[in-house]
């Protein structure tokens, strides 16, 4: 170190750091930034806060944690000393020290390199490496070896066990003066100072002993051995193609599903998720397993393309968002990047959908709020980054690959919980389905995505180019040999049904599909023109005939709504009626020489017809004639309730009200003109007195809501801090906590 005098404190060291170093620290430990520290001293103290320390330590690798632990065990020491006790290459240890210093988890004090005070506490628990105690202040390294030699076999076995089990145990043994006096292995160990007694019957193995047991280092096995990934070889171009294929499918399916949900949105469950049946239907629509459907749904929601909103009936449903429209107008590659980036950063756990909750045993729905984990995003990114480190042409091996990634992640972040293994497996599955990986390797465009550069540009050349034409065939199918331009696809959807989807789309023209187009307002000529213009090949004759046939039949049957019909065998009578000066009020239309219809209901139409001098009769649905005799109308006798019951109820209610009022009066009357008894002793005394004398008292009482209320009561007994008393207001016996009584006063009789 070039610094002439070492810094006295961490703050001092931070003050001496270059701006870049401080900036690097703040970047790695962003929690130090807000609120902005006032000076280096505050920064240093905040860096030593337990929660911040733990968070920083969570990001350490196994090697770095081991070095940090060694620092705690050995105490302030020189870099060389540290290299001796860590079972790793010196260069690796130096790198680790540099990172620990950079993270302000350790600093160079005058006595040597030193870990921050709070670090030792954080080293226990999940991800602990060697589980050593700090070295005793008076430790002599040479002496330990001799004492170990001298220990009996039983004592040595116990010591080994204790060391492996975490270096701590409980024992009632006292420390004998000499090892020879020891009556048990524990006593012998205590006598030889191989374990040290702590208050409360706890014995611990001191750091220097643990070190000696492990051959002078904090761990028996090297800590810088990064677990290797199990790999096999695969052509890089195949990896890219397989991944791009999945990417294309993911985008296509997302679009298909959200398009479908635009018109038929699934209901949002009250708990916020998507119903099991809706997920099943989505999986069926997309030709995928439910797990994959859940992933697509979750990713769409994470990307902001899907959210809850009111459907046409006003019920809460899952609907595509406004952002979906802009998304679907973009190129395939860009759309994929939106999805993949959302997936990479989401805390959601799509793979859990469909499984059972461990605690409640209830099924977990896709999009339900429970499906998330704070580790999800980090795990995904790290998994992909680990894969991205593989050289080109190497892919994760089929069976052993996943556990090896789990091991690698466990080395990189030992302090993460054990459920991490599942998260890793899920990340790999999900990435394969989304096309972020292919055949177990990361293609170039995913590397770009991880690095934050232009992934869309790298992906685009691998995806099918949009096409602007189809091939029409005599079996009434049309094949689009690639993804269709979206406007074209929408129009083709109107006139033909989809038979098969994928890189290409196969459409089939049927009676129904052509009729659907006509229903949408197309004319036969438009269908012919459209079909002719999109086809690279001549339009086959059967298709022309199909369209013409359907068009010929289309609309030969007309349907409309009317309220009444008028028919007469006398055509002239109907003509006369149609041309009557006041006929416009009847809203008549002639359908046939002998049939008129009206949009007026019969009861309106009849009097108006009679006004015009016609003499109509009413015909029933079966053609029978109805006689126009007015029906006599009657009402039902209203039911009344017997009077006595409600009178009794009212009386009872009144009695209760009166009781309450009286009690209130008493309370008001008793409201102390002089201060009531309020010290605990006085309160107790007054209450006891009243109980014995069977006298009524007024109390002030703090109720459960925290407000003070007044009560007038007859105390019955005072015991165990509780007062049992008859309450005048509620008219029954109740129990009061004495400490809540704010004051007591005797109530004047009367």
């Amino acid at each position, binding site marked *: 170190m070039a610094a002439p005098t070492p810094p006295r404190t961490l703050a001092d060291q931070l003050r001496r750091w270059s701006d870049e170093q401080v900036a690097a620290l703040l970047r790695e430990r962003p929690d130090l930034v807000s609120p902005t520290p006032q000076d280096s001293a505050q920064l240093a103290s905040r860096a030593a806060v337990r929660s911040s320390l733990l968070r920083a330590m969570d990001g350490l690798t196994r090697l770095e944690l081991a070095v940090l632990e060694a620092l705690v065990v050995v105490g302030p020491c020189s870099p060389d000393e540290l290299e001796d006790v860590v079972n790793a290459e010196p260069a690796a240890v130096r790198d680790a020290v540099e990172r620990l210093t950079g993270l302000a988890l350790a600093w160079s004090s005058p006595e040597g390199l030193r870990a921050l005070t709070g670090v030792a506490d954080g080293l226990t628990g999940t991800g602990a490496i060697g589980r050593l105690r700090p070295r005793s202040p008076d430790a002599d390294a040479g002496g330990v070896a001799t004492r170990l030699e001298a220990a009996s076999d039983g004592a040595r076995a116990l010591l080994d066990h204790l060391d492996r089990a975490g270096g701590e145990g409980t024992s009632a043994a006292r420390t004998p003066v000499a090892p020879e006096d020891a009556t048990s292995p524990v006593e012998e160990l205590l006598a030889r100072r191989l374990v040290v007694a702590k208050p409360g019957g706890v014995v611990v193995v001191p750091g220097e002993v643990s070190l000696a047991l492990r051959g002078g280092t904090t761990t028996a096995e090297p800590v810088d051995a990064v677990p290797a990934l199990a790999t096999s070889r695969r052509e890089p171009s*195949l990896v890219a*193609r*397989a*991944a*791009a*294929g*999945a*990417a*294309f*499918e993911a985008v296509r399916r997302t679009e298909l599903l959200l398009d479908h949900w635009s018109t038929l949105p699934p209901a949002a469950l009250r708990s916020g998720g998507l119903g099991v049946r809706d997920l099943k239907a989505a999986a069926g629509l997309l*030709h*995928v397993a439910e797990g*994959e459907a859940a992933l697509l749904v979750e990713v769409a929601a994470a990307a902001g393309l899907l959210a809850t909103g009111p459907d046409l009936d006003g019920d809460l449903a899952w609907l595509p968002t406004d952002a979906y429209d802009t998304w679907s107008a973009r190129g395939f590659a860009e759309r994929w990047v939106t999805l993949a980036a959302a997936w990479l950063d989401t805390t959601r756990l799509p793979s859990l959908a469909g499984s059972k909750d461990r605690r409640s045993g209830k099924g977990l729905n896709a999009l339900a709020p429970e499906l998330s984990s704070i580790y999800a995003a980090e795990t995904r990114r790290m998994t992909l980054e680990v894969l991205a480190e593989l050289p080109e042409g190497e892919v994760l091996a089929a069976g052993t690959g996943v556990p090896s990634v789990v091991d690698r992640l466990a080395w990189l972040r030992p302090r993460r919980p054990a459920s991490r293994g599942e998260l890793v497996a899920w990340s790999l599955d999900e990435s*394969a*389905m989304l*096309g972020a990986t*292919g*055949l177990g390797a990361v293609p170039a465009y995913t590397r770009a995505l991880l690095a934050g550069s232009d992934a869309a540009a790298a992906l685009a*050349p*691998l*995806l*099918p*180019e949009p096409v602007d034409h189809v*091939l029409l*065939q*005599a*079996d*009434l*199918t049309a*094949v689009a*040999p*690639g993804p269709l331009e979206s406007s074209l696809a929408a129009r083709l959807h109107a006139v033909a049904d989809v038979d*098969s*989807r*994928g*890189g*290409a789309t*196969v459409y089939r023209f049927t009676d129904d599909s052509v009729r659907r187009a006509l229903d949408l307002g197309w004319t036969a000529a438009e269908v012919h023109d459209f079909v002719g213009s999109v086809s690279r*090949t001549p339009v*086959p*004759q*059967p298709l022309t*005939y199909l369209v013409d*046939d359907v068009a010929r*039949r289309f609309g030969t049957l007309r349907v409309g709504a009317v309220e009444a019909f008028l028919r007469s065998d006398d055509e002239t009578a109907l003509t006369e009626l149609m041309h009557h000066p006041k006929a416009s009020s009847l809203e008549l239309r002639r359908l046939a020489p002998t049939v008129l219809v009206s949009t007026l209901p019969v009861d309106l139409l009849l009097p108006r017809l009679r006004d015009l001098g016609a003499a109509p009769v009413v015909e029933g649905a079966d053609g029978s004639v109805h006689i126009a005799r007015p029906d006599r109308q009657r009402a039902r006798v209203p039911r009344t309730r017997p009077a006595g019951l409600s009178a009794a109820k009212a009386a009872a209610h009144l009695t209760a009200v009166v009781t309450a009022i009286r009690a209130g009066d008493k309370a008001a009357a008793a409201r102390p003109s002089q201060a009531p008894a309020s010290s605990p002793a006085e309160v107790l005394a007054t209450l006891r007195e009243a109980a014995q004398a069977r006298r009524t008292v007024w109390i002030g009482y703090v109720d459960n809501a925290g407000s003070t209320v007044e009560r007038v009561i007859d105390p019955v007994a005072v015991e165990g801090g509780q007062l049992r008393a008859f309450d005048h207001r509620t008219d029954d016996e109740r129990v009061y906590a004495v400490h809540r009584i704010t004051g007591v006063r005797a109530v004047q009789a009367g």
Partner: protein
Amino acid sequence: MSNGPLIVQSDKTLLLEVDHPSAQDCRKAIAPFAELERSPEHIHTYRLTNLGLWNARAAGHDAEQVIDALLTYSRYAVPHALLVDVAETMARFGRLRLEKHPTHGLVLVSSDRPVLEEVLRAKKVAGMLGNRIDDDTVVVHGSERGNLKQALLKLGWPAEDLAGYVDGEAHAIGLREEGWALRDYQREAAESFWHGGSGVVVLPCGAGKTIVGAAAMATAQATTLILVTNTVSARQWKDELLRRTDLTEDEIGEYSGAVKEIRPVTIATYQVMTTRRKGAYAHLELFDARDWGLIIYDEVHLLPAPIFRMTADLQARRRLGLTATLVREDGREGDVFSLIGPKRYDAPWKDIEAQGWIAPADCIEVRVTLDEGERIAYATAEPEERYRLASCTPAKTTVAEALVARHRGEPTLVIGQYLDQLDEIGADLDAPVIKGDTTVKERQRLFDAFRAGEISLLVVSKVANFSIDLPEAAVAIQVSGSFGSRQEEAQRLGRLLRPKADGRAARFYAVVARDTVDAEFAQHRQRFLAEQGYAYTITDADELLA
């Protein structure tokens, strides 16, 4: 981005662009494992099925090859899930094998014990298996070989049948290639079959399936049982065998309702095999009458259910199925696969036509319009009567007669479903009518006369759908069909496809009543042919008559 001819869809269909320069290579690469589903003019559709993939495994292809073929020829990236699925499906085949054990006879051997345990616990196979010899081997009752294979296929663990075949009684049969030669595709078909042991050969009508059968017999060099649809067809097989092989009249027997001969080569009809007497099949013993080395099923798509059951017991004999269409209207393609064998050879019709082995054909749909009175009658008829009414409209008779007049002199068939309609046409045109009650002798005489060119017009019912060899028929007019039967339409077209001496194109007219169920059924019937690349031209009856 490669620019291959193949597009792999995630629903397991493969689209092959026919006009692509490497389309032929691609077709060769994918044919072993993908089933050709449709072959219209521009894009052919293949489908990956479990059966097809297992079939490929049986023929010695592995998943790696399949995936490589897909990736090599695919234009776009191949869906990941599909690749995984291919590998997994193919890995299921061959975990169980049927083998011959020196002391225990037929045994089921497993290379994957959990699979064997799973299968042993399945209810479907209970009773087919005997004692367990060791952890991986179970005895199979000899008679259950076919049923077991069927059951295992349904369980999703198809067994590889390595138990081999009996050679059967040897009998010298040689092809006599005088003035003709085995065509390339016929040779390939026979070889593929022999290599595979058992299976089905799919060739268009008129492409010489009988000769493939003869070639298979010549390879087997063993006594052969041939099952055909009817007696006329049996006679034709006999004639063809006499012409193409060195078999003599005495060596070929006919086993039908009329004659019961059992000779080294015996031709039996489905009908006689399924005849029951007192509830039992009367002629079952034919299967054991000789030690047959080869059994040939003609028109396997028509194989009746009882023969399937009989076939289950014949798994030790080589079986060859011949057909033009594997489409079964009853959907029992899976039974054909597991009991006769997988498809061993398949060629698109248009390919064979392009090679000049079958005549090109023009298919024309003629639409007639019902007159007002008929429309009312049709509209008010009971649903089950409607098809008959629409099919038998007099307008069709007029059109048929006009068409016959137009093609006067050319050998013409008028084919129909309803006998009174046929009788009426026959009477109007003064042509002989062949239907179910026509005697075999009379049929034979008429067909011979037709072949010889003495008569140029025959009116036939559905009895002539199959296996009647009428090489010179150049025009067929179908006035009605059995509802929506796709294979019938294909068979009827097939009557015309035998190459003509003068290279003429055949014409197939389907007369259809517009706006009725007849038109709907017609569309369904045409589907198979449209998928095979036969585009129908549609004309109006009025234009035709004008």
